[in-house]
């Protein structure tokens, strides 16, 4: 298990390096950094001066090496738009996005696990259909519309929850529900399908034939094997939520990474965009790595790979 973890970690680091290089090159190809630094309406010689001064005329590989060295030392450069340290900027926004992403996935699991298990125990019955309907409700409405409905109900009518901001955990309740409920159906379907399969498996029949309690049959013997694909989906969804929660961040004025990414792209703030892209891909790679480890723990057959 330890050897497996070390090999996977080495692979994850290699992938992170490759992604950072690719994103660096792609971003440089997408626009002229010198022009962006020189500002709107700058003359050609100003741009040329900036290019020389910032070393942007050097080969890309040299610039990348320099950027990588700085990044590894924790120096992500200075934001062109906010005029502040990018590291500080990102460190400021990251927690909001992380909390929102994690709590949304946890909420999605909390909704979809019981619904998926129940549906699988009573497949093709009214229970099954009710569970599916409950799960799918979140996806039937557009994300922003559902969020607005929540605000209308909980903030304006009931006055239970604050409309926007990040002050307390209460601020995260509605965004979490809006995001988590939206991804819940995917989890629910996967859990249902997995449980239907494992409940019909020979080893579950063995467990029943051994007189094990229904709880032990469902949770110990069937659920563990059904969770394996769910872990991978959770990692992918979490990555998606971290990068893609921009609509929800905007609606609830959660000042997170999604919103920062949006701003930095709009204002051609290269260092910030670069940092956000790097951070999100590293987080994504880390999530995949974690999913691999969790799955190897769930399924001993995977540990040899």
């Amino acid at each position, binding site marked *: 298990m330890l050897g497996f973890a070390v090999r996977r970690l080495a692979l994850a680091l290699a992938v992170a390096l490759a992604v950072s290089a690719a994103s660096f090159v792609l971003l440089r190809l997408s626009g002229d950094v010198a022009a962006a630094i020189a500002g709107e309406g700058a003359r050609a010689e100003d741009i040329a001066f900036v290019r020389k001064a910032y070393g942007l005329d050097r080969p890309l590989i040299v610039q990348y090496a320099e950027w990588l060295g700085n990044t590894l030392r924790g120096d992500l450069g200075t934001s062109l738009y906010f005029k502040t340290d990018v590291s500080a900027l990102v460190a400021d926004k990251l927690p909001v996005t992380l909390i929102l992403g994690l709590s949304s996935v946890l909420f999605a699991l909390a909704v979809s696990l019981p619904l998926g298990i129940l549906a699988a125990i009573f497949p093709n019955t009214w229970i099954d259909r009710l569970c599916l309907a409950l799960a799918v409700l979140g996806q039937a409405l557009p994300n922003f519309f559902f969020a607005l409905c929540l605000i209308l109900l909980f903030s304006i009518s009931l006055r239970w929850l604050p409309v926007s901001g990040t002050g307390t955990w209460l601020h995260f309740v509605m965004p979490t529900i809006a995001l988590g409920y939206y991804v819940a159906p995917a989890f629910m379907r996967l859990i249902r399908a997995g449980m239907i399969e494992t409940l019909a*498996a*020979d*080893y*579950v*029949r*063995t*467990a*029943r*034939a*051994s*007189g*094990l*309690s229904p709880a*032990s049959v469902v949770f*110990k*013997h069937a659920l*563990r*094997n059904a969770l394996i694909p769910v872990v991978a989906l959770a990692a992918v969804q979490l990555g998606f939520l971290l990068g893609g929660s921009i609509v929800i961040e905007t609606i609830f004025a959660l000042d997170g990474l999604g919103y920062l990414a949006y701003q930095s792209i709009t204002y051609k703030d290269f260092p910030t965009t670069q940092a956000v892209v790097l951070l999100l891909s590293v987080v994504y790679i880390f999530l995949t790595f974690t999913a691999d480890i969790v799955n190897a723990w*769930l*399924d*001993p*057959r995977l540990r040899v790979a």
Partner: protein
Amino acid sequence: MSAILTVEGLEVDLSVPAGTLHAVRDVSFEVARGETLCIVGESGCGKSMTALALMGLLPRNARRRARRLVFDGIDLAAASRTQTNDLRGSRMSMIFQEPMTALNPAYTIGNQLCGVYRRHKGGSAAAARERAAFLLGKVGIAAAGERLGQYPHQLSGGLRQRVMIAMALMCDPALIVADEPTTALDVTIQAQILKLLKDLQDEFGMALVLITHDLGVVARVADSVAVMYAGAIVERGTAAQVFAAPRHPYTAGLIDCIPVPGRTKPGERLGAIPGTVPALVGNITGCAFRSRCAHAQARCEDAPPQHAEGGHEWACIRGAA
């Protein structure tokens, strides 16, 4: 000898898209303590359904009925789910055909063996482990302590079936139902596993209901035999009675199909009874075997009479010789 298991008029109906499939039709037999009963018949004749009905493990679309279904003095037909669950894995265990998939890939052998023991006997983890290691030794697995920490995928099919047998024995059952326990294994391993089952039976004294479609297996291990055809038992008796003087033409046909060492050349096609089993959906009138029977007559259109002769029973118009 008192019977450990009495089955009278067992019926299993399955609801299928085409209607109701009568998988088990009016099946009756008895198993004495420590006895080996072999249930034999072609694929699809209802052997597994009979076994699952005894264990209360029928699929969801199945319904079980019986005039009498008594195990160890307990009326299974009237037992609650919890009562049946308390018996399973404890007083009665089951071994299945597919050792490759019958163990949970996510847990160690030790975990799965001990789980059964602690479910029924409680006690400490150490006691369960000790019992598991003891039984792994009994089923012929060397280095039991080490095997307990291994996962199913680290074991061969033969070893896994030995583990399944050890699991069935964990709580010292009075009856083991084994549904084709050797069919999925290599021929050499098949013989070893059969011998193991017999040896364990001698040592621990449990009764064995062994399901097979292989009369060669029956000849080696059975005390008594029940021959099933199209969901019903067509002949029943001691192994000596059935092999020496098969009364039902179907039994006789099956016996003719047993390969005889020396007489059957390698690669030669074994004899087989021509024709196919009738569909089990709906009612069968008359003798179910008549489309394949060399002795069929007009009278076979009616339900065949039951004959009994010194514990040897069969259902055919042909009486005692």
